[in-house]
């Protein structure tokens, strides 16, 4: 950035630095201060004899007659800072006893013992610039990879989507066909069929409930650790047992059967306690899927609510709802090993062991299996839909952050950032987790909107606002939370490095002209 200046300097030759000019005047303005000739204030307001320049009395309204003294309230002083960057400082900092210019030129009459630190600073700056440039370079390369991956991922997902749609159609046909076949075949055994149909309906209903449970589990398990904790439950104040307006930890723990967290198996018992009151976060936040028209069966927010009310009368064959339902199995499919071990089949077996479920014939079983697969596809479909709906940046370079979480442990807390999802804080030595906000929006300045993320509507503060978090993104090779703070009560600030914000660095050569000769 001081390339032109340097060139100018070079063109003037080495003697340029010796060119006499009044103290505090930058070389670029040298021509206005001509020794012995009347000086005209740079705003043109008046002309004064040259001996009034830097005579420690302010004559010009714009302060231009006193570039080297503190006489003008609005003046500025130029330090050459050879070896480092030149700078302007307010003239009130001249001779105030505090070293501001690294070349010590601002303290020429205060007795302050300033050391010339320009070379040292220059060296450090070059080092750090170099380091940053390297980081930017590597980061930028990583970013390119991320963009490629995102592209591939998107295509894949779109493919899956299409696949699901085809399969759905196919399956729907097959289910219909099967049912007809089954109905025809079972005509003579009407009684039995009805029994089986009923059983089948019951299974479907049970299935649906289990599936909803699974979905709720996933939603509740905000930190995706395979269990639902008191803290996670606390985020759903509608579950308040005594409806006194406060959902306490004790109450939450009561719901969890007296323990701090439950896994998927234990959650079953919990589910029966909460299903009537539970309100999905999506419903709550009224997030409308932009694609809901295209895929009406996925129009969850409205439907789900209805679902809660009309559960019992539901046509078992109504495929719409179950889309969200079978998340457990879907999750198994999507996430593979490492996800909660409980499977739907397992649960069903348990049910059977208890003898609550009537046995059904092979065809019904087939039907159920097919339906399951069908739901699986639909769920995948829905998840992809949701994922695609996020703004992952101009080249989807932030997409890799989706479904990931990053932690930072401070002296007191563990902070957790799950990009595009939520931010939370948990005391290091026990205690419940607090939501510091859920994904809100990109909130950087207009020219760099993807530099800041905003997470909003976290847990409310007593007599205060809901907690919120601003995440500042800076270029780095690694994806990591580097710091957190709470500048204002309940307003958190998090710094986060990721290659996704790295800009293509200008070539090192152009940035680093040879400083040595200065």
């Amino acid at each position: 950035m001081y390339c032109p200046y340097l060139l100018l300097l070079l063109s003037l030759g080495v003697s340029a630095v010796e060119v006499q000019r009044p103290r505090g005047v930058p070389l670029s303005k040298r021509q206005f201060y001509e020794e012995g000739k009347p000086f005209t204030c740079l705003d043109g307001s008046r002309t004064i004899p040259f001996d009034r320049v830097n005579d420690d009395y302010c004559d010009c309204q714009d302060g231009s007659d006193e570039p080297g003294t503190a006489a003008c309230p609005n003046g500025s002083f130029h330090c050459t800072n050879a070896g480092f960057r030149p700078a302007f400082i307010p003239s009130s900092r001249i001779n105030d006893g505090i070293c501001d210019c690294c070349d010590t030129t601002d303290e020429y009459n205060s007795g302050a013992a300033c050391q010339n630190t320009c070379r040292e600073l220059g060296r450090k700056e070059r080092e750090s610039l170099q380091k940053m440039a390297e980081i930017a370079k590597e980061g930028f390369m990583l970013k390119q990879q991320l963009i490629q991956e995102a592209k591939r991922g998107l295509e894949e997902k779109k493919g899956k989507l299409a696949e699901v749609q085809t399969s759905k159609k196919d399956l729907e046909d097959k289910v219909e066909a099967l049912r007809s076949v089954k109905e025809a075949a079972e005509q003579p055994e009407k009684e039995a069929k009805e029994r089986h149909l009923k059983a089948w309906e019951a299974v479907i209903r049970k299935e649906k409930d289990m599936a909803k449970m699974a979905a709720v589990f996933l939603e509740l398990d905000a930190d995706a650790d395979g269990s639902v904790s008191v803290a996670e439950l606390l985020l759903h104040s509608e579950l308040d047992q005594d409806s006194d307006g406060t959902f306490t930890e004790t109450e939450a723990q009561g719901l969890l059967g007296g323990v701090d967290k439950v896994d998927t198996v234990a959650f079953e018992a919990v589910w029966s306690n909460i299903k009537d009151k539970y309100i999905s976060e999506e419903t709550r936040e009224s997030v409308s899927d932009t694609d809901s028209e295209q895929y009406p069966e996925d129009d969850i927010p409205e439907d789900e609510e209805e679902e809660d009310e009309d559960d019992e009368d539901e046509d078992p064959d109504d495929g719409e709802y179950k889309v969200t339902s079978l998340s457990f199995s879907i999750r198994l499919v999507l996430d593979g090993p490492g996800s909660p071990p409980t499977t739907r089949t397992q649960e069903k077996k348990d049910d059977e062991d208890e003898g609550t479920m009537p046995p059904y014939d092979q065809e019904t079983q087939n039907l159920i299996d097919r339906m399951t697969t069908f739901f699986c596809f639909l769920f995948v479909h829905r998840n992809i839909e949701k994922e695609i709906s996020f703004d992952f940046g101009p080249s989807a370079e932030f997409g890799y952050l989706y479904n990931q979480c990053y932690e930072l442990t401070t002296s007191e807390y563990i902070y957790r950032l799950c990009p595009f999802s939520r931010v939370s804080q948990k005391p290091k030595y026990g205690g419940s987790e607090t939501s510091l906000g859920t994904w809100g929006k990109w909130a950087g300045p207009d020219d760099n909107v993807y530099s800041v993320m905003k997470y909003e509507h976290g847990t409310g503060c007593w007599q205060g606002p809901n907690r919120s978090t601003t995440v500042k993104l800076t270029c780095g090779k690694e994806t990591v939370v580097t710091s957190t703070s709470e500048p204002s009560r309940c307003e958190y600030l998090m710094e986060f490095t990721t290659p996704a914000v790295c800009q293509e660095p200008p070539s090192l050569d152009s940035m680093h002209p040879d400083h040595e000769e200065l």
Partner: protein
Amino acid sequence: MATFTERMAPVLAFWLVLCLSGTWAVDRGNFKTCDQSAFCKRQRALKPGESPYRALLETMELTNTRLTLQLINDNNKVRLLLELYRLQGNITRVKINELKPLKPRYEVPDVLIREPPTEPLSLLSQDDNGVVLSLGAESQRVIVSARPFRLDIMEGRDVLMSLNSRGLLAFEHLRMRKDTFSYKVTSTVASVWDNIKRVFSSQADPEAEKKEEGDPENQAETGKEEEEKVEDGMWEETFKSHSDSKPHGPSAISLDFSLPGVEHVYGIPEHADTLRLKTTDNGDPYRLYNLDVFQYELYNPMALYGAVPVMLAHNAKRTTGIFWLNAAETWVDISSNTAGKTVFGKMLDYVQGSSETPQTDVRWISESGIIDVFIMLGPTPKDVFSQYASLTGTQAFPPLAALAYHQCRWNYNDQEDVQSVDAGFDEHDIPYDFIWLDIEHTDGKRYFTWDPHKFATPKEMLQGIMDKKRKMVAIVDPHIKVDSNYKIHNEIRSRGFYIKNKDGGDYEGWCWPGSAGYPDFTRPDMRAWWASMFAYDQYEGSMENLYTWNDMNEPSVFNGPEVTMHKDATHGAWEHRDVHNLYGLYVQMATADGQIQRSGGVERPFVLTRAFFAGSQRYGAVWTGDNAAEWDHLKISIPMCLSLGLVGISFCGADVGGFFKSPSTELLVRWYQTGAYQPFFRAHAHLDTPRREPWLFGPENTALIRDAVRQRYTLLPYWYQQFYLAYHTGQPVMRPLWVEYPQDPATFALDDEFLIGRDLLVHPVTEEGARGVTAYLPGKDEVWFDVNTFQKHNGAQNLYIPVTMSSIPVFQRGGSIIPRKLRVRRSSSCMEHDPYTLYVALNPQRTAEGEIYIDDGHTFNYEKQEFIHRRLMFANNVLSSVNLNPEARFTTRSWIERVVILGASKPSKVTLKTADGQESTVDFDFDASMSVLTLRKPGMNAGEDWTVKLQ
């Protein structure tokens, strides 16, 4: 700092009330009304005109220094001893105590700076009805009337003040409790003992003995009456869930004062009310009882954090003062015979030559102690200030930097935060001198410690601040966490320094750290120990640029009655009841001593306190506590600080921006503009409010705030000089207009504008969306100059001033000279050697006068004559500087860079003559449109003799 705030609330029993009420007002139910305070209710029930007190003139003794006289209550025959002193400087002291109290009654120590020197009283006449004494020269007399007892202070034929003229003197004598076994035993024993005693008794008081013996009937009657009189609340009192055991029974005192010719009374802070005190006939009396009031309400007589029992009475002829030296809970009733009258009614009186002179009646009621009252007879406001200063001392002379801008917040989170705020000020070119740390900087609210994570290297942080020539204040509250791993607690406990509860154990209450003990600051040995804790080797992480803030020193006890200490807690021989209002003063006293000691007596301390009492001015600054970000709170900051200034406490300020809630940008800017012209200038904010450092509201507002703060810095020489004056004379720095214009009734009730010293008049904009303000410019033959435009306005008029967001209406009095330093730098210390600009505002006689005071700004060396104090005078077209104190020696590098003469005419030539006899010509500019003459760079040293001649 918060009081009883949200963070603590959930653990407290009554948090729900706060929650549910959900309003931003004080929960009045937490604080007593007069009716709920047993002694106030008892005393207020007394009817005027039925005084049972009679002066026993035959007991009168007159010595060189005092008159003593017994008073008897004819109802119960209890005798009181009246002492009357004439003190130097036109003060009369009246002391009334029981003649023979059952046990000693509390007399407030440590408030008077010395035993006040007396002057002889002389007897003018005496008869059966009374005594007339001369109060010295000015035909002032005291008339003691015998039946009923009353005192009248006269000057010529005018009554200046009457005591017990309404017969409301009451003195609840100490007595044995009658309904207990111990009383019965004691009384039986006592009567036996009395007989024995009588046999052996000396002849000390034969008169009295005879009287009593000679009146057995009366005595019997007395006993009966007393038994009848046992009322609720005499021996035990309950407020909400708190009970006060009152082991010593009733002990209240009360006295009335009549002020003929007076319609305006002021003082008795701290109340969030108008400058002119209101009558209290239709509500509660003004209450003086130091309390931590959460979200206080405005315009009412409720008690707040501090108490100064001093009232000023003023009319166009005279100013007087009443100093009621009592540290117990006190209530003050005010009534007036003109209060109810309409303007028309008053006019009618005037036209018809009405019979009735206006009169204000005042009545003081205190829960315990004695009557010890100082009547300051003026006659001018300034006389009253010096009279009061002669009793309780003057404002501590603060370090210069303390008069600059302070940046505070609950809380700056950690060292990084401090550093970035510090850098923010530089980045936005806004000066500041002090950054403050609230309670969160400590290790678990253990004062004198630092949070090991957030403030791991305090010295490093302090050094960083020092490198910018800035300073820091860290909070040290008087409640001490009960924690056996905490050094301070262990030491206080092992030395037995804690206040005791009524059962003799260490008193414990809830405050920020949870369970806390309260050191007994009334003990000199405790205060000495506390002071020693500020030594650099005791207070780890402290450095010489670290100063102190004492909060919560009412004391605040979250779970105590009225959020303070139980009155039956004990301080050695005394109950907390006796000393309550003094506690905060002692905390600040000990802290300031600690700061002085740590520097070996060299450096001036700076300590801010929330609680205060008469005399607190000697120890530092005071702020108006936990206000709110509301326009009315901005407005009330003016009368609140004016009231404090009138009773000696000049170093006063309100939290700029408002503590609770979040100010609108407009309010914040207006508050900075107002605060920049009030003595203690500190921005502060509650923990739960969004950040509000000056640069967070867009460049335009940053510029407005910067400008306000910079105006403060340019005027620091004037502020410093005013504080030097306050330190010397006891005159307030921030003054109501009537103090300077005592004969102009138009000024008597003004409290939306004020004077700094006598030369600057400030009418800050305190209305939302204001387009203009109307300022009253006083002085019939005076002129005032707008300090921004230099426009001249005549005095004795209401002037409408159009305003924009950048306007701070400030006027310089014609006839004054004000020094400024226009080179505003990042802190006041950076400006130490900078040159001065003198603003000479000419009066219609074309003269002006001012002063300049210079010293090192931070040590006590000014006491050793190391200062420059000069008078600047302009007359006959000559401006000159003469030494006001030839013994003083100090040199400065500062010089005079500019002289701006307002209301001047154009000279043909200007010459400067310096001390060495050199003469030189001075360049000048003349602005004919505004009649402003600017002398360019005369360049003389500010500490030397010189004259500038306009020709």
